[in-house]
């Protein structure tokens, strides 16, 4: 617990520090449109990172999240545009597809005993293939220029007026809906992680799989549920992205696995399992966002930003290894 708190503190301070730095260093960083840009652009990544964090806590990894984001988005697009389902039904189907995709990852890991890296590398490709196969924009080319008009879906990509909600403390005119979705989702996952038997079992498994097995836990079901939840998280992000872009593209979410893993690891999810929580990955995602947006405003090229994302990931993993080694824990 103490370790979680201290690593959370580090990431929170780092995020605040970076925010302060770019507010001074980059013009236009500390402006309302830019902060909104940050919240819109990184809330969905934070949701994916929360799911990814759970998988890493259970000593796994999910490389397929980017494809799962696209899968959920495409299912939603098809359901609304081709089958003309209502928003709630369509969103349910999209989340179901993503959850099943995640559960399949879990089945591959648990029953075929594939390495999580290999299993999800395979589904990374396979799910992307499914996205192309079911793409309504390919099947009905006329749909590709049309926007999703369903009000519920549009609402997810919209904003919520908060003028005066916080008094004069935070003078924000509005906050993106996706940020609220993130907050609610994170609160539910945090509750599940810290206050339910499922969460306790997950942390036990992460800390010592043998101990979980010896305590008579159903570790197979546990792992499948964790991968399924990671898929659900990616699906939620996909649904939000459709709301924001009012369409789904086949390439949506490509490469997101890297940023999601980076956000989770920066957020203190130990690669040796069991440590970390929900807050960490969220701050990890926004920290990445602050750095990348800040650098863009300072005029750094896109290519350097990709190098930097990789470098940040390496630094975070290196730090994690260092802490684990020094702690001398199992």
């Amino acid at each position: 617990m103490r370790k979680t708190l201290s690593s959370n503190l580090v990431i929170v301070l780092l995020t605040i520090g970076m925010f302060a730095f770019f507010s001074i260093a980059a013009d236009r960083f500390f402006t309302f449109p830019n902060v909104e840009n940050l919240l819109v652009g990184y809330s969905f990544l934070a949701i994916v990172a929360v799911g990814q964090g759970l998988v890493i806590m259970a000593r796994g990894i999910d490389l397929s999240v980017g494809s799962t984001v696209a899968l959920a988005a495409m299912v939603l697009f098809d359901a609304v545009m081709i089958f003309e389902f209502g928003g709630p039904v369509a969103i349910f189907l999209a989340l179901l597809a993503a959850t099943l995709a995640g559960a399949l990852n879990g089945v591959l890991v648990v029953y075929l005993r594939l390495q999580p890296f290999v299993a999800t590398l395979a589904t990374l490709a396979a799910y992307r293939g499914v996205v192309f196969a079911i793409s309504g924009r390919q099947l009905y080319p006329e749909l590709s220029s049309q926007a999703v008009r369903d009000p519920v879906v549009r609402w997810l990509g919209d904003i919520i007026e908060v003028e005066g909600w916080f008094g004069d403390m935070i003078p924000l005119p509005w906050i993106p809906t996706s940020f609220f979705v993130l907050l609610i989702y994170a609160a539910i996952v945090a509750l599940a992680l810290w206050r339910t038997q499922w969460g306790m079992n997950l942390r036990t498994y992460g800390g010592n799989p043998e101990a979980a097995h010896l305590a008579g836990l159903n570790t197979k079901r546990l792992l499948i549920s964790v991968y399924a939840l990671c898929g659900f998280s990616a699906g939620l992000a996909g649904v939000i992205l459709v709301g924001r872009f009012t369409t789904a593209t086949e390439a949506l979410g490509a490469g997101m696995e890297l940023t999601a893993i980076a956000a989770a690891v920066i957020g203190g999810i130990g690669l040796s399992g069991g440590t970390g929580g929900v807050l960490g990955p969220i701050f990890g995602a926004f920290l990445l966002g602050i750095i990348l947006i800040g650098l863009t405003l300072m005029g750094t090229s896109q290519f350097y930003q990709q190098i930097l994302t990789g470098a940040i990931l390496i630094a975070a993993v290196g730090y994690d290894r260092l802490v684990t080694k020094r702690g001398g824990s199992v």
Partner: protein
Amino acid sequence: MSVLNASGISKTFGTFEALKSQDFTLEAGEVRAVIGSNGAGKTTMIKILTGAHAPTTGQVMVDGTALSGGPAGHIAGGIACIYQHSSLAPNLSVAENLFLGQHPRGRFGLISRKEMINRAQALINTHGTQVSPNDLVADLPTVKQKEVEILKALMRSAKVILMDEPTAWLSFREVERLHDTIRKLMAQGVAVVYISHIMDEIFRICDTASILRDGALVWEGQVAETDRAQVVGHMLGPGQADTKRAAATTKAGAEILSIQGLGRKGYFEDINLSLRKGEIVCLTGLIGSNRTEMVRCLFGTDRPDSGTITLHGKEVRISSPREAMSLGIALVPEDRRQEGLFLSHTMSENLLAAALPKFLQRHMLQRAPMAQAANSNIAGLNIQPPDPEKVVGTLSGGNQQKVLLGKWLETTPEIVILDEPTVGVDVGAKNDIYSAMQELKGKGAAILVVSSDVEEVQLIADRILIMSKGKIAQEMAPDSPHEELVAQISGAAT
């Protein structure tokens, strides 16, 4: 009435009879030693009792109720097992670990932290354990982790607790603490099965003993009515001798290695040590005296900050294991599974791994001499089963250790460092390891053994060095009285 009643249990794997049909009963408050060489059927019996193996015949009953449903069923039925390796989650608190798998629920089915901590504290209080429910398990010393495991068993109201080599990683004083805990369990009417290779401990803590050999129970009775020689006799079978100190050994020769003022910040300092040809020097002390860290510097795994290492009168710098090997230094590490063996490879591959250049002719490995060398090694070390193609991961602990030793015998190094060579190894295998060390010594090697087992140290050492808190505190002769040696080792820590 007996608390545990396992009647007619047996286990057959294919055609191999791992455990022959036998009865095993325990009374409440009894501490029973289960003794046997590796492969005698101990592990099989434990696994049947914990529910990990379903017996081929027979059944396990606790308080008259037959158990079923695998490990979970046996835990619920009142049998708990404390394994050699920790079965706690290091990232969780003590209280969270105590309730693994079944935490107390409060409103809305959520885990009630308050109740969890209160109940954990109550159990800790009744038991007088010095931990807090909020302590992180990773931060606790090993002995306290063992105590937490015992508490965990009690939390499930275990009536029978099996302990597999519970003292393997504990220091003398910690063993005492664990034994005190076991005495408390006795008073509470919990039956304990104490599985250990350390005779000394068995005679101190156990009431009764069951001795297994070749899958059969060969002796059962009161510990007070037998002695060490008899126990070892039953264990090894007719015609096998107990470990004895090798008779008048050859005189030590010229100095090979000399260490002056060696130090590594935070681990050890000012170590002076000399090793001579044909002698065995034992480095003993409490766990945490950083002996392992010291020998790692000699093998180039870690680097010292200060001091010099002189080999054959020339100062050397050892910065990698490769360099150490080329200087004729070999290390048999403490953690054989992690650091020493290629577990998924065969015995012959492991035995010859360090000596491959010897078998090269025109850049090609010569298979025939390799097979011959592997076979002679297996015979010399009495490795069971004597099959060079056997995968090392499937061998028992003692035999794995022999393979590791055999790997270096093949290269005939000048200096052999062994770190806790016989932890978790039975008497028979210990004998084989000791004689291999004598053989190396006879060939003129200088041997440095790190060992916490005082009996062992007295048996094999030509000189004993006691290390404490990163310093060499004292040198003693191997024929010093046992009690004095123990007192010096424990005293060296204060």
